[in-house]
């Protein structure tokens, strides 16, 4: 296969805070092929959003942040982009959508202007009329009914689902090859969530766009991604093809995360297997596996040595665990 669209190696994002160094993203590596979707799942504080923002070049500008490692986009290093590179790549070839569509839109700007300003920013030669025409076309692409009327409305006049569609339209303005979607449906109702996920899936297909789909919900990523990476305390703990991952999980954390959720498929009143304790404080790192204090299977070795993400015999199914759940024990499929 040719080189991947996104090639991330040992990416580390560190923030200097009053409580000391906080390593939010810790030596993260992954590849994303053209047109593919990688789901990144984790609980709050796992570093999943910071990872997305770092790829987008949004953390390297923060005065207290240090980014090391490398992000190669189509072979070009965009880890710590300079101004020129920022203009050429970010917002153009890589675009991002955010969780809260209301706070990511300017309340005193028309919906249409959000889109035309993006268009005109990246293509100075485009005329006003042309920008307007394209903006209405984009609103239509994200299935907003009556796009010409919506063009002239303000963000507060739209529902949450509609605003998220506007966010997607802005992101699509420059026909990006990579879309970073950070919790795109968390603020939305389930019925709207389904529409937005369907829309993102359709657009990826139609435009051959790759996507980093960041979510706290394994359910959102299931069925909507080619690969899944589970993050915990700044590190990727498990990475696999979705078809493989949802059949069996190799890392105890991934399995616990699935078991802890009250799935609709479970029988009524099912007792949930919960994960005791809570995630570690990112300012206080300790030796060994980061999940060890909450892990049912932890041994002495887990508390002393840090496991690395290894495929352990099964191709393309990596787990950062010394004692991964073997396929036989965990073939228990999540009922569908």
């Amino acid at each position, binding site marked *: 296969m040719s080189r991947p669209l996104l090639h991330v190696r040992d990416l580390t994002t560190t923030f200097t805070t009053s409580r000391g160094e906080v390593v939010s993203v810790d030596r993260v590596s992954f590849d994303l092929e053209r047109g593919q979707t990688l789901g990144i799942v984790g609980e709050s504080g796992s570093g999943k959003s910071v990872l997305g923002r770092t790829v987008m070049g949004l953390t390297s500008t923060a005065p207290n942040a240090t980014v090391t490692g490398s992000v190669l986009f189509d072979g070009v290093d965009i880890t710590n982009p300079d101004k020129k590179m920022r203009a050429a790549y970010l917002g153009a070839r890589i675009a991002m959508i955010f969780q809260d569509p209301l706070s990511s839109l300017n309340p005193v700007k028309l919906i249409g202007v959000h889109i035309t300003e993006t268009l005109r920013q990246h293509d100075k030669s485009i005329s006003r009329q042309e920008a307007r025409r394209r903006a209405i076309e984009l609103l239509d692409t994200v299935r907003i009914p009556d796009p010409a009327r919506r063009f002239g409305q303000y963000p507060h006049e739209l*529902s949450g*689902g509609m605003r998220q569609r506007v966010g997607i339209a802005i992101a699509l303005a420059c026909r990006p090859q990579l879309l970073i979607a950070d919790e795109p449906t968390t603020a939305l*109702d389930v019925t709207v969530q389904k529409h937005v996920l369907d829309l993102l899936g359709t657009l990826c297909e139609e435009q051959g766009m790759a996507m980093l789909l960041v979510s706290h919900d394994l359910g959102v990523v*299931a*069925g909507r991604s080619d690969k899944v990476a589970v993050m915990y305390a700044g590190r990727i703990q498990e990475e696999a093809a979705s078809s493989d991952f949802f059949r069996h999980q190799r890392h105890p954390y991934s399995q616990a995360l699935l078991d*802890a959720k*009250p799935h609709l498929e*479970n029988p009524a009143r*099912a007792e949930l297997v*919960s994960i005791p304790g809570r995630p570690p404080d990112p300012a206080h790192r300790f030796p060994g596996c980061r999940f060890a204090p909450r892990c049912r299977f932890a041994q002495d070795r887990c508390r002393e040595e840090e496991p690395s993400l290894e495929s352990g015999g099964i191709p393309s199914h990596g787990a950062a665990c010394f004692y991964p759940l073997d396929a036989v024990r965990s073939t228990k499929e999540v009922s569908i």
Partner: protein
Amino acid sequence: MAGTGKTHLREAGSTLLRVEDLQVEFPAKGGRRVHAVSGISFDVAPAETVGFVGESGCGKSTVARAVMHLPAPNSGVVNLDDTELGSLSAKKLRETRVAMQLIFQDPMASLNPRRKVKDLVQEGVEIWHRGGDRRALEERTRELLDDVGLDSATVWNRYPHELSGGQCQRVSIARALMMRPSLLICDEILASLDVSVQSQMLNLLKRTRAEHGLAMMFISHDLGVVKNISDRILVMYLGKVAEVLEVEALDRETVHHPYTQLLLASVPRVTGERIKPSVAGAAQDLPSPLNPPSGCRFRTRCPLATDRCAQQEPQLEEKRPGQFIACHHVS
């Protein structure tokens, strides 16, 4: 959707809370009115958990507040233990209401940031002089804090900002239990918590309600969560009840109200198979509660809708044992 109708109510003597024809409207600009809750009836038996599920704007939180008379509903009857709350004087209402405790979604915002955990938990009983002497009060506070999974010695003098969201929510639960309520009203209390904490809280709530013999109104947008904790489920849409069902009917029955069906189909399934994105349809919005559709309120989004749905409001009918549906077209 529909529906009004009371066929799903049980005998008056057997219930703890009985709500009939609850109606809540809010004034809006230009003399218009927001029809938040339009004639909802339900009951809660002692030690029973009733789940309320629906999209944002369906009125589920408004129902919770109207039951508490915060503020009182525009019309309708709320009976708690055979006492009609609407008939009580302000003073008597405050006193009676203590038997119902409300827990909110945002655990940080619902706790006074300037008070310590011990004071937060004791505040209610102090107001009502129900704590007994100082030692008994302290003992019970510690006991309840330990019960909800907090280390009472550690959190005793802490402030809310020193706790995590899950811990704050535990403090809220302990504080509610302090009043020895018979009904706990939980309004989206898990929505802001992580999955691993959510499951801890669900297990805690189940244990607590068994230990204290609590009835619960459990409000959530998450059908999976509601199914896990409820005995009965009310599916709400735009201020009306679409379907009432025993939780077992979710596993048993395959035919539901078209709105319930839509919700069920929208919940993401945990599957490794790639879902073919259905050709993304146009964005569809909830109709405005300022001007709700005539007849069945769900008809504007309903695949089964006919003329009849616009003219006549369907009533809740028992279609199968333990399953009440308000729809002209579901049999």
